[in-house]
């Protein structure tokens, strides 16, 4: 068999050299079957930065096209014409106090859902990415991929509410989707979580046995469910729909994705020690997933909202969250800006990667609409009034780029989501607290 990949890039993973397919070299032949040439595939992504950002180091001072890049955004300056900065969007639902939860937990769970959380029961709304995934995910291996660089706390509550809230993606108002943080696990999901035999007969057997097992499990779950009352029935429902989803996924997963792997390419060994490596490895994998059309929708959390991660490698040994309460102290503000800028550097790496991948007449970035932003405003105030937001990518040439736009303070964040849905080809009438769309973003 001819290997479609001849080159690969080497990344240093946790403790071992790992090989990933070099993106540009991935032959389109392997994936031609999945995509018609003329079809313009739109990808939607949200990249989440925790705990707000220092406004003065983020917001450009002028509007329009020739704005100056402030410190945090500096890493993106060379992609000036690929991004649009929007000032004024508010995560207003995050301001509404339900029956529990602090500023952080409300910020993260309201961000893409546009609704306030119900604190004690785990309940928000269906998030914008998941609405898109219902449509865009129909023909891809994964309806969506949720990833993050940091896990939820292991024990106890998170900011006065369940830790289940620590995700931006909600499949339904009661189904938060926990993000994957381990590159190895993500890799396994993409390229085969389960063992796949190299012998075609054995491979067929494996597939048939799995299908029989899942069929039996479905039948068991249904018959067990019949004997149960309300709450128990709901729990079993979750299992039922999950099994169906896995069954569909296994059906779609044929040998193709495995053939895409270069000879000798290994799995990442775990979570790299360095934050930058970790983030970049995760971004690499998402880029591959977009490129090979394994998914068209993704969310990515740079770190946990209100999290306590220290960044000693850039000279900030203190935990992020307490630093964010800077109290106007210059040294703490400086550290905060460094953290925020560090996050942006990793995102810039991703943008560069997408731009380096050819797709059709242009690049992969041309076919993406990616929001990078926070769900809180000024870290000191812990408010949700003016959330730093930028959009990268061209959404097949439909985004007006290279500008800084200032709109009225506390314009609902959900307006952006409605616009994103439109850009992704999933026009939607109502979403969360939206009261309009951002026509300036699409007005070419």
């Amino acid at each position, binding site marked *: 068999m001819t290997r479609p990949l001849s080159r690969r890039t080497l990344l240093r993973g946790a403790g071992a050299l790992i090989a990933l397919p070099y993106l540009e070299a991935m032959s389109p032949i392997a994936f031609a079957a999945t995509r018609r040439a003329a079809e313009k595939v739109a990808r939607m992504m949200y990249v989440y930065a925790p705990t707000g950002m220092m406004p003065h180091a983020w917001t450009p001072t002028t509007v329009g096209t020739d704005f100056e890049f402030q410190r945090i955004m500096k890493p993106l300056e060379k992609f000036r014409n690929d991004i649009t900065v929007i000032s004024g969007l508010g995560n207003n639902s995050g301001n509404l106090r339900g029956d529990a939860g602090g500023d952080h937990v409300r910020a993260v769970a309201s961000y893409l859902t546009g609704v306030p959380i119900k604190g004690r029961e785990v309940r928000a709304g269906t998030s914008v990415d998941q609405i898109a995934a219902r449509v865009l995910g129909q023909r891809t291996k994964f309806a969506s991929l949720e990833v993050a660089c940091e896990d939820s706390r292991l024990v106890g509550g998170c900011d006065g509410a369940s830790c289940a809230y620590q995700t931006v993606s909600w499949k339904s108002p009661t189904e938060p989707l926990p993000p994957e943080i381990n590159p190895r696990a993500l890799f396994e999901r993409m390229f085969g979580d389960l063992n796949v035999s190299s012998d075609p007969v054995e491979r067929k057997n494996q597939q048939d046995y799995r299908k*029989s097992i899942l069929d039996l499990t479905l039948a068991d779950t249904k018959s067990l469910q019949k004997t149960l009352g309300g709450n128990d029935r709901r729990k079993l429902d979750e299992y039922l729909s999950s*099994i169906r989803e896995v069954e569909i996924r296994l059906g779609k997963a044929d040998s193709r994705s495995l053939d895409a792997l270069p000879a000798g390419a290994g799995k990442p060994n775990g979570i790299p020690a360095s934050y930058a490596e970790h983030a970049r490895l995760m971004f690499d994998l998402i880029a591959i997933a977009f490129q090979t059309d394994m998914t068209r929708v993704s969310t990515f959390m740079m770190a946990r909202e209100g999290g306590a991660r220290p960044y000693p490698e850039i000279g900030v040994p203190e935990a992020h969250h307490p630093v964010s309460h800077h109290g106007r102290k210059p040294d703490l503000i400086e550290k905060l800006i460094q953290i925020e800028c560090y996050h942006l550097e990793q995102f810039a790496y991703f943008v560069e990667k997408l731009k380096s991948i050819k797709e059709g007449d242009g690049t992969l970035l041309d076919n993406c609409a990616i929001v990078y932003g926070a769900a809180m405003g000024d870290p000191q*105030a812990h408010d949700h009034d003016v959330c730093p937001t930028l959009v990268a990518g061209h959404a097949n040439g439909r985004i007006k780029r290279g500008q800084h736009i200032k709109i009225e303070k506390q314009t609902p964040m959900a307006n952006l989501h409605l616009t994103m849905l439109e850009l992704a080809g999933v026009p939607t009438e109502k979403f969360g607290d939206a009261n309009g769309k951002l026509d300036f973003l699409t007005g070419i």
Partner: protein
Amino acid sequence: MRAVTFLLIPIASLAMGASPTTASSSFDSVVKPLVSQYCLDCHNSSDSSGDIDLEWLQKRGQLELQDRATWERIVEKLRAGEMPPADEPRPTREQVTTLAGWIDQQIVSLDRDAKPNPGNVTARRLNRYEYDNTIRDLLHVQLRAANEFPPDPFGYGFDNIGDVLSLSPVLTEKYLKAAERISEAAIPSVKPVPSVAVRYEAEALRQIDRQQLQTLHDFPADGNYTLRVAWENAISDKSAMTVVWYLDGKQVASTPYMWTTLADRGVDTKGVRIPQGTHKLEVDIQTPPPKQGARGSSKPSIVRIQIDGPFEQAKREEMAGYKRIFFKGPPTAKNQAGYAREILTTLARRAYRRPVTEGDVKPLLNLANLVRSRGGSFEDGIRVALQAILVSPKFLFRVERDPPAGVEAQRINDLELASRLSYFLWSSMPDDELLMLAEQGKLREPASLRSQVRRMTIDPKAHALTESFAGQWLQTRDLESLTPDAKLFPDFDARLRDAMRTETEMFFQSIVSEDRSVLDLIDGRYTFVNEPLAKLYGIADVRGREFRRVELDGAQRSGILTHASVLTVTSYPTRTSPVIRGKWVLETILNSPPPPPPANIPSLDETRVGVSASVRQQLEQHRSNPVCAGCHSRMDPLGFGLENYDAIGRWRTTEGAVPLDSSGVLPDGRQFAGATEMKTLLKADAPRFVRALSDKVLTYALGRGLEFYDRPAIEEIANRVEQNDYRFSELITATIESLPFQQRSRQPLEAAKSVARADRKP
């Protein structure tokens, strides 16, 4: 809706008893005018802001049971100063106290009149910890397969709450994968596992500059493994050193070694026999203390370890997992058809924790036969059927049947009770003895239940209570995810982290196995230390990694509050946090967690602490803000009491140049100076602590959040503990014999959603 914060009401008001007559007479003279003055403008029948309408209250003069949850919210907001809003006229502090006190009393009398209700536990899927334990006991295979699962969500402080344990497609996919991995470990193919070399780099494990290194490793088969270590920075002074290896904490190899040249930077063991499974592997380079006046302080630091193997692999028929399933040995030509049925019946009965039916076994046999029809072996067929068992909801969920229609509540059956017992005490499945008693309907015979509980409590599997219950209640499980700043706390490494956790586990375990007073948790004057921990505590003459019991004078340490584990998980990476520590005391010891900060009020700004002012002064300044003061005046002073311990729990008397003031005050006003006095006061309030602990134990035992109707059960458990010298065993027995543990009601009472739903106008 499950939204009741239990025990918000001070125990004192319970004890005093609030007679409804007093309540109603004070209503007209005191409560009614206050409600009219401060609340009715918005919360009236036409506006009913926030869905709350208080007009009907004004007419009736008392609360009603279906509004209980809403009243708890109201009183919480009132106490927190969130209501009335800041821009409206606000009552005085005394008025707030009066109003809140009246509501408290009303709630108490509601609860007293409520009829018994054992509550309804939602079907629980096994959490990660239970999954691994259950696999261990079901198949005798030691894999930590659940490490690959996403973290379990928490509710009410624990990760075994049925309502909260959700299930995603990702988890389902991992169940399928784990089932394959586990069944292959239990029933390996005939081909031997290939020998490989696996490396772990110190840098990637974040354990650089150390003479120790530890990691989890999957040993794919019973066999011999060569363990290899490489280091750098060795000195060539011909001094002897020893490389010691530990598997799951037990020494398995010790290799003496003499440095001769700088080039010598690694040493291998001979083949070490290691059983299949996921094990914790540790290596330790032991060097003699540096000679007096020796030049430099160069020490070997481990760069990586490598594990080669397996060699001389055991035959699969000799492995524990295989023998557990194929209990009559390998199949013979004659017995196969009947044997397959026997094997699958036995497996399914254990896995489903109940007797099985033809409907359970037939589909499994069909699967096994399908594999055989495609040319697979007998074992291959059983392996695939086992995979189906492991993803079946009958295995993954602990399901209990509701009482039949028309019956509000009834005892759960013996099989359900057996599972409740085993998952409470062992975090695992019932063993054969327990299951058999339940099948025979003998479990509830009085002698039988008591002796089973005793048997289970002394079984090593009961360590689960320490690891899982105590680890979550005390939050010491969080240690795994914490990294104190390496520059400020160079002594903190994986070994000290382990030692901290082990100390608390051994201490809690001693309360369990010696059946001590639960009050020893607060100030027991003994503990368990090894060398790294003794060094941190300043206890002399403790050498080596083995733990030993030491007696304490109580001046610096006694009880869990001064364990390094607790002090570290309640700190930031660079410094202590009186706020977090105070919150911990409120949650853990007093069961009175503060509500989350109100909307748009920044969390307390501890980072402003600088050289010019102590943490204390800064926090005191913050408490001048009345909105913050409500909670912080309860939290912070408790945390101050622990300021003599730094962010990894080391004793100190100054912070930088500033002398420390560790005086504080309890929420009830009693004052103390330092941790020892604080503990004395906490212990003096034993009823409160015992109720807090009973609340946590019952929550964990049931796997659901507690409701107001559980209060009589808490009272009874606590009373029994008090009447039996505070013995831990009584806590366990009383919990198991309590109404909510023994019974189940049909469905949760659909509590009223709010005081004044639109359809409930007076």
